[in-house]
């Protein structure tokens, strides 16, 4: 019988969710585990997978629309069934199961006293579907690794439904390997109309914020209004760091790895934070929370907005590993493919606008972190060294600190250590 799908809880803090886009249309059949829609939570875009096989009878919440947790978003059921049934069931009317389905049940299930708004997942339904020739051939079964490999290779497995070499046509690893080597079934570029965010705004148009922009707006306003920020500025001579970076990248040229200035800054920050626990603690509910390791958030600009993935325990990782992780995280950040846990748990952040030729700026702390370093461009500047005017590569940084967590001197010491590490950059390699 038809049933309502409701907005699922996909992150601990989410209270509402936005349908990023539906991947199925009304009338489409789907298998257990198929991705039905992409749902934007307050933090990330997540895939919404089907709990059970079925057919989409009606979509209640369209692309880009936001509803509260638990609100119905679609009605699903058997092919040809009416969507109205679930709606009336939702109003409390008990609906008897259709005759054919009851006959196909092999395991007795307790009769529900009153139809709930969303019927619990019924195992008999999948069996009923398997007994129905038309539905059984349409069911797409995929082993977990085959699904992962297909996703990574951009292969749409829909056409493989019932054609895999595993039991009951399950698509397995070997099938995907064959598809990859044959080049078949590669997913076409999205042909549908571009989502709102990709359209140029019309004059005077008013748009809702995406969940990510909403989260940024709320958190930054709260931080700037409640966290007493103070700022410490410094100039760092990056001449030797740039030389080291060139040398490293020369040696790594064949490996595919490439160290960026930002990787060196992340490494220097992590090492410096461990040396200065007073500048590496959070102020939470009137207490100081200390951190054993420095997990560094890295602000990644998106087309509209930003996200801050985290290099966990960066103080324990060599520059090359920091570089690899950062590249992977930033790439997936831009593709909207970060997992919730990858944007949590930072103890400090780095925001680098050097690529925009910014001389200097001040960043807003992302609580419960107690500091963030804002990094400007590295530029050739005349400076005085040993009484002589020479040209050096100078980078300006500004550390924003939470005065409830640390004092001005703590912040200054942290910046000084970061500066010393970057000016004697071989220390970053040990």
């Amino acid at each position, binding site marked *: 019988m038809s049933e309502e799908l409701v907005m699922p809880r996909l992150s601990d803090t989410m209270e509402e969710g936005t349908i990023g886009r539906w991947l199925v249309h009304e009338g489409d059949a789907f298998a257990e585990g198929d991705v039905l829609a992409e749902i934007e939570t307050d933090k990330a875009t997540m895939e919404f997978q089907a709990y059970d096989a079925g057919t989409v009878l009606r979509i209640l919440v369209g692309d880009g629309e936001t509803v509260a947790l638990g609100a119905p978003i679609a009605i699903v059921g058997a092919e040809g069934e009416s969507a109205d049934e679930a709606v009336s069931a939702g109003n409390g009317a008990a609906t008897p199961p259709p005759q054919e389905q009851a006959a196909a049940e092999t395991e007795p299930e307790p009769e529900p006293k009153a139809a709930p708004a969303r019927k619990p997942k019924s195992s008999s339904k999948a069996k009923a579907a398997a007994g129905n020739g038309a539905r059984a051939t349409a069911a797409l079964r995929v*082993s*977990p*690794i*085959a*699904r*992962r490999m297909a996703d990574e290779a951009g292969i749409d497995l829909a056409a493989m439904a019932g054609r*895999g*070499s*595993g*039991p009951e046509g*399950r698509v*397995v*690893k*070997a*099938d995907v390997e064959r598809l990859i080597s044959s080049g078949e079934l590669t997913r076409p570029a999205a042909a549908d109309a571009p989502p709102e965010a990709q359209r140029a705004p019309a004059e005077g148009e008013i748009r809702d914020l995406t969940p990510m922009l909403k989260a940024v707006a709320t958190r930054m306003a709260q931080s700037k209004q409640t966290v007493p920020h103070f700022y410490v500025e410094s100039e760092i001579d990056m001449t030797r760091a740039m030389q080291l970076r060139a040398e490293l990248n020369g040696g790594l040229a064949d490996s595919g790895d490439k160290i960026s200035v930002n990787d060196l800054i992340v490494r220097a920050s992590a090492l410096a934070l461990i040396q200065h626990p007073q500048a590496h603690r959070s102020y939470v509910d009137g207490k100081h929370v200390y951190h054993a390791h420095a997990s560094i958030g890295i602000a990644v600009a998106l087309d509209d907005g930003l996200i801050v993935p985290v290099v966990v325990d960066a103080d324990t990782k060599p520059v090359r590993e920091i570089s690899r992780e950062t590249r992977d995280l930033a790439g997936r950040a831009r593709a909207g493919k970060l997992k919730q846990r990858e944007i949590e748990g930072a103890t400090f952040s780095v925001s680098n606008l050097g690529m925009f030729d910014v001389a200097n700026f001040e960043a807003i702390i992302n609580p419960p972190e107690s500091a963030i370093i804002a990094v400007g461009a590295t530029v050739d500047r005349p400076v005085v060294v040993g009484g002589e005017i020479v040209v050096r590569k100078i980078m300006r940084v500004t550390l924003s600190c939470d005065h409830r967590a640390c004092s001005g001197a703590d912040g200054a010491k942290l910046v000084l250590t970061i500066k010393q590490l970057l000016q004697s950059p071989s220390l970053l390699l040990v």
Partner: protein
Amino acid sequence: MADLTYREALRRALDDELARDPDVFLMGEEIGRFEGSYKVTAGLWQKYGPERVRETPISEEGFVGAGIGAAMMGLRPVVEIMTINFILVAMDQVINHAAKIRYMFGGAVGVPMVIRTPGGAGAQLTAQHSQSLEAWFAGCPGIKVVAPASVADAYGMLKTAIRDDDPVLFCENLVMYNVTGTMPDDPDYTVPLGRAAVVREGSDLTLVAHSYTVQRALRVADTMSRDGIEIEVVDLRSLRPLDAETVAESVRKTSRALIAEEGWSTYGVGAELAARIHRLCFDDLDAPVERVGGAEVPMPYSKPLELAALPLESKIEAAARGLLAESGIA
């Protein structure tokens, strides 16, 4: 490197630890003059005397309890229980005392005791004397449970177990005693508890086992290798602590997992590992995790029925081929 039996490796480990540490002593039924039912303590009573190789009455609860008391007072008893089947009368001492004392005394006192005991089946000893009960103990916090499957591990792990500050149930296997293998010449050779070992590398399937079943697993891997199928065999070595990460690392490589054990599958080692593998490797699996265990019956006496109840090579191979077939591999 020297070739010797599993039995002799255990005897040497006991001999070396008795010689190394005067606090170590042995206790059990018929382990002195008679040299133990399976001759693991051969010659030790003559060498170390009745104070350090103590014979006990047939009273498992009594002498396990005595071992606990001695351990709490600072000695390092190695208690032999003739077979794991007889530990059942001492369950209260093992589970409620040995495994609990460090906790109940707030860490002030521990029980550095080893209980050595063989399990296993295959010699027509029938229902009461053919059991592999180690999983029952491995489910209990507070006691380590190990089950070496090679000569070198028998030696190295028994020494580590004796030096451990907490109780260790050291599970031997009746069929293993005559298995020969090489042992390092190093007299200081030890093997840490809680680490599994990849004993054969392969790419198509991870086959996990412990104790004598590892030997069977290796033979299955050899057989299937002739058909071009490469099985990776993981020897768990310890059941608690359980090194699920080594297993997971292998499964991430092969995408398929089969667990074989001589005990019953239901609530067994394979059940625990299947749960861990599903959590650690969900996105790496190409087929459901599969298990092979002893038939869920009391062990029959009749030889044909006993063979039918044991997880022999043929059953492990059939399960492996079934898993591979599900993955589209012939």
